[in-house]
C-alpha cells in the first residue's frame, strides 16, 4: 500500500506572474495517501493563502489541475505522493507552453480560440424512427470523447511548445483528435479534409507521439486520430471502419465558409464588437 514515510516534504513551487518569478520552498510533514494537489492545498491553507492553482473535481475528470511535476506534465490530482521520490525536493511548475497568469495558473485561451474554429457536427436529416448507430461504429469516436481537455498534450507538442508563432495556424493534438472524432462520427456529413490540412495545420505534426504519452485518459492521439487523419487527408484513402457511416449515408458535403460562420462571419464579429463597450 501507499504508506508515505512519515518524514518531511520539501516542495518547490513556482511562484510569480507574467513579469517573472521563481521557485519558493515549502516544508511540511508528509501524510498518508496524499496526491500532489492535497499537498498544494495544504500549503495554500496554511502558509500561502493566495497561492494560485486551478482544480475542480480532484478525481481526474475535469482536466483543470495540469502542471509539470518534477518536469513531467501531469494532473496534480492524480499523482500520488508515494509515486514520487519524496526524499528529494519535489518541484511543481506551470505548463510551459501557455503564458503564466500567476503561480501554477496559465492562460490557456489559445485552446478555446482553436475550439471556435472547428466546423460543427453536421448530421444528416433525422429519420422518423430516429438515428441508428451501432456500438462498433461509435467506439472509435468515444475514445476521443473521453478527452477531459487538460491540454497536457497541447503543452508537450513541440510544434507549439517552442514556437509561439505556430499557434496561429496549428490546432494541436487535442483538436486534431476532435476533428478526427467528427470525421469518424457515423452521422456526420461534412467533408473537412481541405480545411484540416490548410487551416488546422495537420502537416506540422511529425508523429513524435509525445502527446499520446502524456494523455491522462490514455487516448491514442497519434495512432488512432492523427495518423488516420493524415491518411485520409493526404492520400484520400478510406479507412474501412472509420468512414463506414459516411459510406452508408453517401457522399459527404464539402465545407463552405458558412460552417465556421458564427465566429468568422462579419455579422457575428460586428455583433460582438458592439456588445463590449467600455464604461
Amino acid at each position, binding site marked *: 500500500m501507499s504508506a508515505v514515510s512519515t518524514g518531511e516534504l520539501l516542495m518547490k513551487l513556482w511562484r510569480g506572474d507574467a513579469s517573472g518569478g521563481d521557485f519558493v520552498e515549502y516544508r511540511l510533514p508528509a501524510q498518508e495517501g*496524499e496526491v500532489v494537489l492535497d499537498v498544494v492545498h495544504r500549503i495554500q*491553507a496554511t502558509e500561502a493563502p493566495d497561492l494560485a492553482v486551478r482544480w*475542480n473535481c480532484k478525481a481526474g475528470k475535469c482536466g483543470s489541475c495540469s502542471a509539470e511535476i518534477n518536469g513531467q506534465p501531469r494532473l496534480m490530482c*492524480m499523482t500520488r505522493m508515494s509515486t514520487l521520490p519524496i526524499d528529494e525536493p519535489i518541484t511543481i511548475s506551470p505548463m510551459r507552453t501557455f503564458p503564466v497568469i500567476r503561480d501554477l495558473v496559465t492562460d490557456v485561451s489559445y485552446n478555446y480560440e482553436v475550439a471556435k474554429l472547428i466546423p460543427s457536427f453536421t448530421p444528416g436529416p433525422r429519420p422518423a424512427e430516429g438515428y441508428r448507430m451501432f456500438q462498433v461504429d461509435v467506439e472509435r469516436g468515444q475514445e476521443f470523447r473521453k478527452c477531459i481537455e487538460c491540454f497536457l498534450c497541447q503543452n508537450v507538442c513541440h510544434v507549439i511548445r517552442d514556437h509561439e508563432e505556430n499557434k496561429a495556424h496549428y490546432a494541436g493534438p487535442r483538436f486534431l483528435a476532435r476533428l478526427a472524432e467528427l470525421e469518424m*462520427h457515423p452521422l456526420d456529413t461534412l467533408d473537412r479534409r481541405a480545411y484540416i490540412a490548410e487551416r488546422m495545420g495537420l502537416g506540422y505534426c511529425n508523429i513524435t507521439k509525445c502527446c499520446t504519452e502524456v494523455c491522462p485518459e490514455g487516448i491514442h492521439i497519434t495512432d488512432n486520430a492523427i495518423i488516420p487523419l493524415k491518411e485520409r487527408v493526404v492520400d484520400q484513402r478510406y479507412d474501412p471502419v472509420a468512414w463506414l457511416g459516411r459510406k452508408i449515408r453517401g457522399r459527404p458535403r464539402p465545407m463552405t465558409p458558412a460552417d465556421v460562420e458564427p465566429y468568422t462571419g462579419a455579422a457575428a464579429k460586428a455583433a460582438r464588437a458592439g456588445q463590449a463597450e467600455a464604461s
Partner: protein
Amino acid sequence: MASVDYERHDYDVLVIGAGGAGMRAAIESLEQGCRTALVCKSLFGKAHTVMAEGGMAAALGNVWPEDNWQVHFRDTMRGGKMLNNWRMAQLHAQEAPDRVLELEAWGALFDRTPDGRILQRDFGGHRYARLAHVGDRTGLELIRTTQQRAVGLGIDVYMELKIVRLLKNDSGEVIGAVGFYRDKGNFVVFSAKSIVLATGGVGKSWKFTSNSWESTGDGHALALWAGADAIEMECVQFHPTGMIWPTSARGLLVTEGVRGDGGVLKNSEGERFMFNYISPYFKDETAETIEEGDKWYEDKVNYRRPPELLPRDEVARAINSEVKAGRGSPHGGVFLDIASRRSPEYIKRRLPSMYHQFKQLADVDITAVPMEIGPTCHYIMGGIRVDADTEETAVAGLFAAGEVAGGMHGANRLGGNSLSDLLVFGRRAGLAAAERAKASSVETTLSEAQIKEVIDHATSFFANEGGENPYDLHHELQETMQNLVGIIRTESELIEAKEKLAELGERAKKVTATGGREFNPGWHLALDLESMLAVANCTTLSAIERKESRGGHTRDDYPKADPELEKVNMVSRYREGNYSVTPEPKPEMPPELMALIELSEGEGKSAPAKEESK
C-alpha cells in the same frame, strides 16, 4: 476609495453557470435570437456536471418498451417521498426523452443497444433500465456536447468570472449582475433583461463531499439576497457510496452503476445487510432473499430487484446503522463488492473510470478486492422556488434551473434524474428568459451607487487587517455542518449549529485576504464563504422546522414521516439581514396524476409479464 473601475456589457439574457443547465439554457436563448452571455467560475467545460457518471434518466423505452413517462413520473414522486412539485416531476418525465435524443442529434455518442438505439442502464429507484449513458462518464458527454453546440452557435463565454451580486431596478425586477474575473481580479458589470441562475450545488459546506470547489451555493445565495424564496433546503442527499480511504480521496463518488451492474454491500461479517433494511414502503418491489435478488440481474421480469438498489436515502441510512452497530470496515465504512461477482473484463468495460479512480488514488484493484465506501454529501434537492413551466423565481426577470432550483426532486433525488432535469428545465428557463427579454421594455439602467457598493464590499476583505484566515473559517463551517447537520439530525444539535453559524457569520465578515487581486484563492474563498453561510443557515433552520423524517432529511427525534408535513414546503427567505423559514402549503396534485401513482403501486406486486428479459 478611488472611483470604481469596471468592464461593462449589455445582453438580452445573462446565464450564470455553465454546467448542463446553464449550457442548455444558453443554447435555447441563442436559438431564440437573443443576445446571450454565459458566465462561469471555472474554465469553460469544467463545471461540476463533468463529474456525473452513471447516466441520465429518460423513459425512452429502448430496453423496456413498457416504460413510459407515467412510470418515470411515479418513480420520481415515490423516490422523492411525495414532496416533489408534481408539475415539475410531470414535465421532467414527459420531456426527458426528447432532450436526450436532441443531444444525440448534436453529436453525443451514447452507448448502444444491439439494434443500434441508445442503451439504458438500471439505477436505484427506477423501475426499468432507464439511464442513457456513456460508460461511467455521462456528465462529460453532456458537457462536451452542449459546449460544442453553444460554441458552434457563437455564444459569448466569460469564464473564470464569479458573480457576487444581482442588481434590481426600482420596480423590483432583476436587471443586472456584478462580478469579477478570477484571473485578473478586475470587476465586470452586466445588464440584462433576464437572468438565468444555473449555479449548481452546495456540497462545499460539508466536510465529506463529492462536489467540486465550485459548489458553494452561490446561486442559492444570490437569489435569496435578491428576495427570491428557497424551498426544502433541509433535503440534502448523502450518496451512500463515497470513497472513504485514503483520507485525501474521502468523499469522492463511487457511482451507483457499480450496484446497477452487480455490486453488493457487505458488512465486516461478510453479510449482505441491505436485506435487513427494506422499509414497508418498498417491500412489494424488492427481493426478499439473496437468491431472488441475484436472479433479477438475469431476469428482470420474473424477479424483484435487490435491496442494494433501493433509493439513496434508504441505503445511506442502512450503512450508517451498520457502522454504528460496530460492523463497519477498517476505515469506518462498509464494503462494496463487485470483484467476487463479475469478471475483471466486465468490470473494466462497464466501469472504466471507477477502476482507474481506485487504482490510481488508493492502489486498490476493484476487480480483485472489495471497495471501502461510506456516505458522502452529494446533492441538494432543495433550492430556489420556481414556477414549474417557466422556471421564473419570485423575483421578476430571475430564472433558476438545475441543481440550484428546488421542487423537482422532493425529499430525495433518484440517480440519473439530475442530468435530465438540467436539460429539461435548462431549456425551459432559457426559453422563458428569452421570451421575457423579447417582450420586455424593462429599463436596465444600472445604479452606479449600487455597483460601487458591491465592489467596495467585495474588496473590503483586503482592508480587514489582522483578521482570520478564510481557510480556517471554512474548515470550521464544514465541521459544524458535518457533525451537527449531517445524515442523522436532532433538535439539540441543530440548535447548536444555528448558534455556531451566527458566530461564524460575524467572523466571516472580518476574514482577511492577503496578497493582490490577481488569481487569489484566499480572496475568492472569503467571498464564497458568504454563500456557503447562506446555505448553511437555511438548511439548518429548515431542518429544525421539519419535525419528521422524509427522504434526505432524517430526524432522530422524529423518526417517522408526518402525513401533514407532506403537504408543506419549508420556505427560506432573506429579509433585512436575517434568514428565516416558514412552512407554507404546497401545490396539490390533480387526481388523475394521483391515480397514476396509486394504480401503479398496486401493479408493482406482479411484474409485467410480457417481453423476454434484456
